[in-house]
């Protein structure tokens, strides 16, 4: 399952949604691709029955715009600071940790955070973010190739 999180009217905050749109075209039909606003409680419901989940979201830390952060959330908690600039009081990081507390976390949960430049109101992506988006989409397609090629049991 792929979950792209964002808001298309907030500049680079649209990154996750754009990743989801592209992956929907590139991946086999069996892959569930979801565009999401980032409400933590709904995220928990969305991935409830999935084994392998990739999440793409924009982040705002002090790293240069376009930096790609990749976290294996199934192994370790996410650094909360990376996703602090959320419009949601109960967002992605909280959803992951609450699901971990309840033992409901997907077996494999990979989170890509793309460093954005601007989160101001608007519909344009920054050049740095757009470049990083290409690399993340490619990375996820590659990561899912072995799963897609795996013979069906």
């Amino acid at each position, binding site marked *: 399952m792929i979950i792209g999180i964002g808001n298309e009217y907030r500049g680079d905050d649209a990154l996750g949604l754009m990743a989801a749109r592209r992956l929907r075209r590139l991946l086999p039909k069996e892959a569930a691709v979801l565009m999401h606003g980032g*409400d933590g*409680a709904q995220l928990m419901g969305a991935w409830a029955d999935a084994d392998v989940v990739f999440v793409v979201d924009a982040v705002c830390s002090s790293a240069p715009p376009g930096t790609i952060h990749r976290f294996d959330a199934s192994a370790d908690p996410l650094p909360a600071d990376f996703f602090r600039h959320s*419009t949601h009081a*109960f967002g992605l990081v909280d959803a992951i940790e609450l699901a971990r507390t309840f033992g409901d976390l997907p077996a494999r949960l990979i989170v890509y955070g793309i460093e954005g430049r601007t989160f101001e109101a608007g519909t344009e992506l920054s050049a740095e973010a757009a470049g990083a988006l290409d690399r993340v989409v490619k990375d996820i397609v590659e990561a899912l190739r072995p799963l897609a090629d795996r013979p069906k049991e």
Partner: protein
Amino acid sequence: MNAKTIKVDFLARVEGEGGLFVKLRGDKVEDVRLNIFEPPRFFEAFLRGRSFSEAPDITARICGICPIAYQMSAVHAIEDAFGMKVDGQLRSLRRLVYCGEWIESHALHVYMLHGPDFLGYPDAIQMAKDHPEIVQRGLRLKKAGNAIIRFLGGREIHPVNVRVGGFYKTPKKREFTSLVEELKWAREAARETVLWTAGLTFPEFEQDYAFVALRHSDEYPFNEGRLVSNQGLDISVNTYDDHFVEEHVPHSNALHSVWKGHGPYLAGPLARYNLNFDRLSALTQETAREASFGPICRNPFQSIVVRSLEILYACDEALRIIQQYEEPEHPFVEVEPRAATGYACTEAPRGSLYHRYRLGEKGVILDAKIVPPTSQNQKVIEQDVRHFVTKHLNFPKEKLIGQCEQAIRNYDPCISCATHFLKLKIERES
């Protein structure tokens, strides 16, 4: 005389980000400022030149936190401009979808954001380790609200089914079956929520507020009513601009709304409850009495109980609407655009949400004005913090900061709605 400044860089558990600054001199609070940095008025600029039919979805998507409220205020204001009235089952369905938003928004706040304050946890995750059943109940309640939104809105994230004149598609009666079962559970869970929250311990902090909310002749208000106050206001929504003004304050990019000639006022659940207790369903009133919670509440920390009662009301009202539902002949009333100005206030979970649109020929938006509840409550939030700090100057620093944050959370401020990124800071120097 020594000066103190309290600083907290990041306020947790509010929608968006905020900064609060408090300056103390001796035993006097010298300054309280809620800081907001985003360029204001983007909503309005973005809408200009677009068709009236785009307004519900655009405003809902810009603010993803309470999309139904934005859609409802938008469609009502535009229908007001076009001289239309949407009645009968279509009107009921609008109330129903609004019930869904209140349930999901309030359940999130009661259980995940505000609840941990009262049980002494830094967040819902820590609370879940000791009280998993409480957090699970909150999540399931929220899910029940989201289910209504998904059912009527088409999608729960960015609902797309609402339009000027009604809906794109209306449900069949038989399609409600699974929703009804879950709502019956939710209604009982909401009753338990009221009894649980009413039993919490609250700081003593009664304030003399000017409450402002909609009041309808026979309903607890969602979509319609006159705007009233306990301090002498009873107006039609289309005179809103004569009575309320938004002021620019130097420390914030968001505009602060004030009642002209009166000052700060409180919008939201506490205002609705105090002004409309007699409009709540019998079950909701009875549960309030069972919880020994009176019809007047001036302690903002007890807003958690009021939100719980509103969840109960919304579940009860949703079931009532579904029970009397008959499929409408058409999913929407035909729209005849004309050049005019339209006004609407509806009750978003956090308080009244005002929209005004000036429309040209064929319904092109010439200008728009949107006043979200958090803009209206900013001054009263600052006032609460000022009074709270003045009363508790002797508190240890950490406790004072913690309770100031809680005082802000009483309002469930949606900063992503008033603006987007807002740093919330409390500073103290000695």
